[in-house]
């Protein structure tokens, strides 16, 4: 266990240094949602039934969660890059904990995300989004957001080691852009036709988004929703637990075996 902490700490330091030396991907992934907030909030928002200010308040939690879902993309890209460039294999020949490399990567991502989310929160405040619920619940909302990000990054790490090619990871990663479109992150899911609403509400992004809207006090839990959305906090925690339980062992085993 102490080797895991020590090696994981060294890998965490490596990832943070890597982001500092080369912050391009971080800046790209964190400015994109700000642009989307402005475009969606003012361009699309003017065509929706919801008043503009109300829609932007509705949109900010959705964008926070959609950005967290990008953890799949960044996790995948970095893991594929390391695998493709031989860094993973070099590390695999060292006498270090097998779990340290993926753990270091995902924890570093969490630290970077915690800081990287601030510009989006501030822009949200500028366009009229407010924390309308109790402070403690708002802290809970941010904790839930980071937990979700953590789970998404583990999925990405596993997929990245699987694809190995940076190019394929980039393309597959770009496809994660579509995931929040089939959820209630940008639009209320109640208006969707029956089966499509069910699909959207079983999208983990919907549960977490609803939980954030509920905890920030931005929008009520919709009536007649599927279970994870109807019980958003429990639903989000359950989703994160399931995803972590599946993808952490998969990623660690994949790293330890290294075969393709």
């Amino acid at each position, binding site marked *: 266990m102490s080797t895991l902490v020590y090696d994981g700490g060294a890998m965490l330091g490596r990832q943070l240094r*890597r982001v500092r030396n*080369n912050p391009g991907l971080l800046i790209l992934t964190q400015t994109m949602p700000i642009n989307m907030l402005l475009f969606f909030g003012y361009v699309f928002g003017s065509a929706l039934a919801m008043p503009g200010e109300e829609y932007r308040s509705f949109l900010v939690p959705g964008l926070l969660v959609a950005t967290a879902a990008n953890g799949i993309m960044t996790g995948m890209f970095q893991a594929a890059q390391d695998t493709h*460039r031989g860094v993973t294999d*070099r590390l695999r*020949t*060292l006498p270090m904990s097998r779990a340290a490399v993926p753990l270091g990567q995902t924890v570093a991502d969490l630290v970077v995300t915690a800081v990287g989310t601030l510009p989006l929160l501030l822009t949200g405040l500028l366009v009229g989004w407010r924390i309308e619920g109790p402070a403690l619940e708002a802290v809970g909302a941010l904790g839930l957001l980071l937990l979700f990000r953590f789970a998404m990054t583990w999925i990405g790490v596993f997929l990245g080691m699987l694809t190995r090619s940076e190019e394929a990871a980039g393309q597959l990663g770009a496809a994660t852009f579509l995931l929040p479109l089939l959820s209630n992150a940008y639009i209320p899911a109640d208006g969707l036709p029956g089966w499509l609403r069910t699909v959207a509400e079983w999208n983990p992004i919907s549960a977490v988004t609803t939980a954030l809207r509920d905890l920030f006090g931005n929008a009520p839990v919709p009536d007649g929703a599927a279970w994870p959305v109807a019980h958003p906090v429990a639903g989000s925690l359950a989703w994160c637990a399931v995803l972590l339980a599946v993808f952490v062992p998969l990623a660690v085993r994949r790293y330890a075996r290294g075969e393709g």
Partner: protein
Amino acid sequence: MTSTYAVLSEGLRKRFGEVEALRGLDLAVAPGTVCGLLGPNGAGKTTAVRLLATLLRPDAGSARVAGHDLLRDPAAVRRHIGVTGQYASVDGDLTGRQNLRLFARLHRVRGPAGRADELLERFGLTEAADRPASTYSGGMRRRLDLAATLVRRPDVLFLDEPTTGLDPASRGRIWEAVRELAADGTAALLTTQYLEEADQLADDIALMDRGRIARTGSPAQLKAVLGTQVEVVVADVDTMVDAAAVLDRLTGAEPTLDRERRAVGALTRDDTLTLPRLVRELDAAGVPLVDASLRPPTLDDVFLRLTEERAA
């Protein structure tokens, strides 16, 4: 037995889907020696190194590396090996110094910063120490790679094509480092495309072919198996056939003809064939001789012979 060899493998097998990459690898490398693993592309050299360096698990067979069982205790093996080469790379996003400090830390080296400085100095990278490794030239990158492998002296060093694409000066620097390590007792397993490199560095050579070791021996032994290379150059292309007939009679081997250089060559194991006799016989046959030589074969000749045998 376990203490005699730094690497000892028996019957290692590895299959990738339909392809049988290794079909029973038996290999022994003694401490303080360099073993050159040679063979045509696809012979299984890289798979062999990846298995022995704990990067892949064999389907069958057994091996001990640095005294530890490869299958039962790969973690112990990892404490004693160093791997450098085409697939085990440093981190291009980090600087040279950051890389070496990271690897020193992961190897539990005391004073990682000092060790990093020492290695930067030794491999001539001090000036570039604070630039990202991705901006390094090929030679600098390879030197950093080897430095990262040497943050702690390994008992067994795996070098997979360590000097491919390098200029002679960088190559010499890496050769020097490998020789020093071997002198200190490190065993090295080297794969290379350059036979000259194997000739320079290797105490023993294992020729691989289709997933097995086809032949082993010192460079001199392998060359001796082939005998002596006879080559004559004639003034007139039309007389090459006559020269070939003489060489055929003298060596008993089928001569090879190189029309562009007007050269005729053959291999012989006949010790009584001397240069004066060769020249006399050719002169008697009326061949206008420009050049004649008897020399030991190069490893290239050995290598070519192996691939010819394979094709036959």
